[in-house]
């Protein structure tokens, strides 16, 4: 094998560099806040803290597996080994300079985590995994720089709000009012879990990241930030790919050295 340094992402703008940084698993995401394991479990709402993991099938060791070379080769995740249910955490990211765009969540999730199932929809990005694996992943997703308490929402249902104006406190709209801005502490507090079921005790997810900081760390191209069209290298990349796909569809033998 040749020595190869992964590139992850093209582009010469600040945004492209941020994208590359987040996609590169060797870059350690900065931890900005601590959410206890129990609070995270409550926020997701799949089980009660301390409750045993429910299972969808017996542990692999007990049930035995079919004779398959790939099963013998590929190490199952701890959750798969135990037969955990597949559960989810879902995020809504505002269009106003949040650290991650929806697609970035999927790309980043697949470069950093193993055995995850991520989907990107118009206003939400679910990440599904075996329950105990999910909890590990979710912790990093909520505690680090890729989560802004005011502009990223943990929303299992009624996710609407990503494209709406921010309110007077800089918070993204949430029809279920799962999170509120605590003016006394300046922190964002979840009063409902991701589905909208009221929590016994509010859970603070910390102070919103400042606008100027968000503009530096965002991976969103915006006309009032760094417009996509100003990143010439990125535009060239997209146009080239479009050209190659189209030409290959006409005759793959003619696409040579371009």
């Amino acid at each position: 094998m040749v020595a190869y340094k992964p590139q992850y992402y093209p582009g010469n703008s600040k945004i492209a560099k941020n994208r590359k940084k987040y996609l590169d698993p060797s870059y350690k995401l900065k931890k900005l806040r601590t959410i206890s394991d129990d609070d995270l479990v409550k926020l997701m709402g799949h089980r009660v803290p301390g409750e045993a993991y429910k299972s969808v099938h017996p542990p692999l060791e007990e049930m035995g597996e079919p004779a398959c070379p790939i099963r013998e080769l590929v190490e199952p995740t701890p959750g798969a080994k135990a037969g955990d249910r597949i559960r989810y955490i879902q995020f809504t990211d505002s269009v106003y300079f949040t650290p991650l765009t929806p697609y970035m969540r999927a790309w980043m999730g697949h470069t950093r985590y193993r055995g995850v199932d991520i989907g990107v929809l118009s206003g939400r990005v679910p990440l599904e995994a075996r329950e105990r694996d999910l909890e590990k992943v979710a912790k990093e997703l909520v505690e680090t720089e890729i989560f802004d308490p005011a502009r990223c929402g943990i929303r299992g249902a009624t996710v609407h709000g990503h494209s709406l104006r921010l309110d007077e406190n800089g918070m993204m709209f949430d029809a279920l009012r799962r999170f509120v801005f605590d003016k006394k502490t300046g922190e964002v507090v979840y009063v409902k879990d991701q589905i909208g079921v009221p929590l016994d005790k509010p859970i603070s997810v910390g102070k919103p990241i400042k606008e100027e900081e968000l503009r530096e760390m965002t991976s969103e191209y915006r006309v009032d930030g760094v417009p996509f069209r100003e990143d010439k290298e990125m535009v060239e990349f997209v146009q080239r790919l479009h050209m190659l796909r189209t030409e290959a569809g006409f005759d793959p033998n003619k696409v040579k050295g371009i």
Partner: protein
Amino acid sequence: MAKYPDKVDLYDDRGRVFASKVPVEALSPLRNPAMQKIISYVKQCVSVNLEGIEKALATGEVGGKWCIIRGRSLKLDLVKNAESIADSLKSCLQVTKDDDTEVKVLKGGKHLLVKVPAKRLNAGVEYTTGFTATAAALCCTIVENFKVNLWDADLIHAAVWGRYPQTMEPLGGNVSSLLSVPQQNEGMGYALRNVPCAHIALITKKNAMNAAALSSILEQAAMFEMGDAIGNFERLHLLGLAYQGLNANNLVYDIVKENSKTGTLGDVAISTVKRAIADGVIKPLEKKPSGYTAYTTEDLNKWNAYAAAGLLAGTMVTCGSARSMQHCPSVFIYFNDLIERETGLPGVDFGRVAGTGVEMAFFSHSIYGGGNPAVFHGNHIVTRHSKGYAIPCVAAAVALDAGTVIYTPEKISGVVGETLSEVPELREPLRYVNEAAVSIHGGI
């Protein structure tokens, strides 16, 4: 004389070399005798649920669930007499005494695996002969062997054929084939694509390598039949089948192995790019101001085959580590996104697999209904767009699932998958296709 210069090394499902420098055309559905046998068996082999017929006759529940004809029932010991039914059925189906007709009794008489003689299929133009001949012969056999009278013969027909011909397909019938009725094919040449992944996983006894191989053979053979794998596009499909479906040069197995313990989907994409560079399939084109290097290739067909092999390896690592089938559409989209961003070259099938992944993600995650990946096939309205590269990965994902879905492959496939797994060429296609390729490669 070979049409194409490509030669590959053949490996088995455990990464052991089987033969070296075999022309890729020896792995073509047009040339490989084992592939042709597989395609023939798909048409010839039919499964019969004798237990189902016995139950339908006893209860009068014929032509679909809850469709009970009150006052009509027949108590016939079909399962107990499976051996004699099999003998009579065989002689009814035979064209000549020494032809290739077979009727095998399985599960203590509950099921029959029937192989209709090729002569019957050759005398017609439709693949449905396998089904129609078996169903009709079975009706005759039951009527004869159990001395069923004129007034009860219609019930036998309904228990065997189901509600057909009132319905387009044999609804509630107890004879089934891998192939659906022609009216259910999305277009010309789609027949071999209309096989749900649940069947494929069960036929291959959930061996992910063989599941991918069988699915790839059916999909890519269909590409020839549909008019896709011809002229400028033939080599594209031949290489895709060899590298993705048949583990040529051990590419799939090597990449899975490299990422088997801790690898992510992103790592698999990078392993694929590394291997493509090392094998001289792609090379740097130019360095951009940011330091990003765009890659190019002199052989886009081979790059596509490498990317397709990487896609299958990515599915095996992701769905394999989670032991869950539902991850496959996410792999389709993001493996391609990541490998395109890594190289600047188009992803598998030049964007069509990524598009297929978007649709499949919606229809396999209860967003717009649909079902779990086990019900999908290459003829499915949301997964037909990739030309043979997506469905083999779905079949592998279904094989790797440890039991995360409500409607299991066993439930979806019913008797068909279980009975057809008795056919060695269908159960272990990699082995038989490799052997056949070696046997003919001198002639190519």
